[in-house]
């Protein structure tokens, strides 16, 4: 067992691009679930729409619509399309469903997210979306920007336990800036009267209505804000690997993001980030450690052969989510008092 290298790999992942995807998705979901109390089970769809907006603009639409346009401009158009996509999705999803009670909203949003994933992966639309293989080849401009700052594609950076390629590091620089900015926005918004209305809606919609606030409009605004932050996660997700694959954005993705938000403590500014980091570290560490145990034969194949590592890690995560919600629903850094007053 090489604990040092396992630990190093897990720590590297803990700050890496994938973590950033989860962290951004979780920060967005925290606006929905933590602050406003909306049970959005379709966060994966917002991430998908962000990633696909960028990918489809660059790979599919721009060659059709704006054949002569410079690659740099096309890239930014793609970002714009992803953001607009998230807003439109929030409106499409929210206008009809936000009147529903929490559990109905959960079913409606998870269904909508599945519809979107299935439409993206359908072979009927393969010509545009690339079907289940998704799309690639839209990250070049972004990587060239990175080269300007010295993040060469082939370069390797290592420092202490950390080890990243140039591409990854460039994604991380942008991603961490986005994480910082979105957390700043959430922090500012949630200590303002606007955030106060959201938190009040979480507690009791009717009371807020009786005080003359348009609850529906606020919920929609919250859905849009969280969704746009989700789309940012989609950009990072697409730009890290240079591909978008529809099945990345399965319900499972949303469930993990929920686990992260609750782990870190819902309705706290740093909660989602901390939750995502712990979750992702645990996931990586367990996977790598168990894989080594299995490959080196320390655990015999009858107990754990390498193909069973994945399921076992998920079993542990499932058990972890259950235990967390039962014994520490306020998350690691949450305030017990706030939860024990829970009126629902």
């Amino acid at each position: 067992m090489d604990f040092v290298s396992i630990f190093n790999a897990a720590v590297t992942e803990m700050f890496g691009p994938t973590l950033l995807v989860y962290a951004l998705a979780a920060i967005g979901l925290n606006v929905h679930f933590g602050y406003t109390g909306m049970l959005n089970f379709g966060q994966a769809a917002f991430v998908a729409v962000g990633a696909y907006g960028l990918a489809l603009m660059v790979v599919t639409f721009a060659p059709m619509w704006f054949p002569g346009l410079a690659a740099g401009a096309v890239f930014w158009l793609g970002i714009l399309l992803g953001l607009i996509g998230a807003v439109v999705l929030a409106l499409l999803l929210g206008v009809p469903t936000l009147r529903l009670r929490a559990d109905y909203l959960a079913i409606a949003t998870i269904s909508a997210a599945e519809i979107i994933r299935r439409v993206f992966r359908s072979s009927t639309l393969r010509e545009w979306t690339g079907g289940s293989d998704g799309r690639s080849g839209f990250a070049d401009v972004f990587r060239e920007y990175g080269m300007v700052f010295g993040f060469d594609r082939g370069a390797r950076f290592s420092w202490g336990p950390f080890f990243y390629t140039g591409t990854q590091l460039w994604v991380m620089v942008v991603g961490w800036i986005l994480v910082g900015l979105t957390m700043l926005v959430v922090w500012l918004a949630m200590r303002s009267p606007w955030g106060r209305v959201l938190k009040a809606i979480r507690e009791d919609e009717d009371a807020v209505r009786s005080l003359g606030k348009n609850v529906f409009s606020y919920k929609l605004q919250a859905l849009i804000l969280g969704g746009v932050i989700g789309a940012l996660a989609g950009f990072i997700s697409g730009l890290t690997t240079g591909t978008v694959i529809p099945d990345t954005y399965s319900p499972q993705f949303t469930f993990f993001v929920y686990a992260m938000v609750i782990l870190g403590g819902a309705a706290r500014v740093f909660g989602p980030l901390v939750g995502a980091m712990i979750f992702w570290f645990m996931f990586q560490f367990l996977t790598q450690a168990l894989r080594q145990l299995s490959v080196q034969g320390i655990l015999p194949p009858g107990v754990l052969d390498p193909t069973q590592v994945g399921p076992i890690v998920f079993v542990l995560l499932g058990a972890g989510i259950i235990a967390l919600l039962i014994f520490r629903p306020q998350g690691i850094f949450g305030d017990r008092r706030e939860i024990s007053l829970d009126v629902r």
Partner: protein
Amino acid sequence: MRRAAIFLTALVGSVIVALGIASTPAWADGEGVQGRLSHDGEPVAGAVINVFAEDQLVGSAESDADGEWSLPLPGAGLYRVELDEATLPEGLVASRGNVREQNVPIGRASTILFPLGTEVLEQPDEALGDEEEPPPGDGEPPPEEIIPEDPEGEVEIITGPTRLNRVVSHVYSGIHLGLIIALAGLGLSLVFGTMGLVNFAHGELVSFGALAAVFFHVPAYAFGLPLLVATPAAVALGVLFGYAQDRFFWGWLRKRGTGIIAMMIISIGAALLLRNVYQYYFGSRRIVYRDFTSQVPIEIGPLLVVPRNLIVDGIAIVVLLSVAFALVFTRLGKAVRAVADNPSLASASGINVDRIIRLVWATGTGLAALAGVFLAMQEGASFIAGFQMLLLLFAAVIVGGLGTAFGAILGGLIVGLFIQVSTLWIPDEFKYVAALGLLIVVLLVRPQGILGRRVRVG
């Protein structure tokens, strides 16, 4: 606002449908295998694929200029598909192995992928090689469970040549699927009605039945009992499992006063846990039952149907009718409906709500287990089968009326029919989308469902 929402949704829906109509599925009817070979986005032509059944060569196919290849097969069953690497362009190999074992279902073409590369990557153990979690390394995508594609909530459609044949077959298969959904959905709806929980782990209870039957039935696992014995055993185990879940877990949470939203997320964790326990134990393969697999369809008027399905329908109808009878005429059944209607009032009138909930868990899980066996008779048992069906179950219980017993049955039939009949007009791959679309439309216009009751607030 509301009208605009309905309009927008209808618009999006019709665009999806319109796109669907414009295309035709690659394979309308008949068994076969197909695929596309490519490397770095370029098609690979001239490669030879050989297909064997029990080591006998069944046929060969060669990839065309687009890299596509296909081969019709004489019938459903287990085939070995081999890519002849010698026919690949110089320097290319099948990076994930060149042999696939494929279980071809009745009436459908299976897609088989051979990723090509310059070197052989980690050899997969299963036929699902390209679905395997990729090795960690640069730019690793977020973790994915291994989810085999297709079929999901699948009922194969066998049909004769005429339009009438097709319509009748689709309607029949809709009823067949509907009955299975109704069986599976009943527990979901009643658990919601009695304890308010939207149980995201209900799909895993369906898988539980399918796999419990594998355990009793398939010789590699335990007893190798005939399916006729293994099925009741699986259902009995399901009842026990449901009872134990409530006795030791959900009942305990209720007593602790865990909130309903927290329980809902707990059920997601439970689903993840169960699903992967199944996968740990049974692997990610689709396991086919031994009995009643290759039956010759019989002809009833314009309908072609395998006898197995008719028997399954018969059992499902009898079971559903007896459950309905029990709910309407027995003391216990009336108590269940009273609790589902209004738990606090039922409790006030002296009904032991906890006991009723336990009963609902036990029978609901038993019915879900039966549905799981029936489903697996069609498509094989796998750890993921129930999960893939979950949203269909949600659609069914919401359409019928969440929390009501008869709503789940009615909704199951409606969703089953809707799905199978919709494929007369839209491609197969959109039928699930259509069902989810139906779910959302129902939530828009009548959130309480068909049999649900609109309740006064405040």
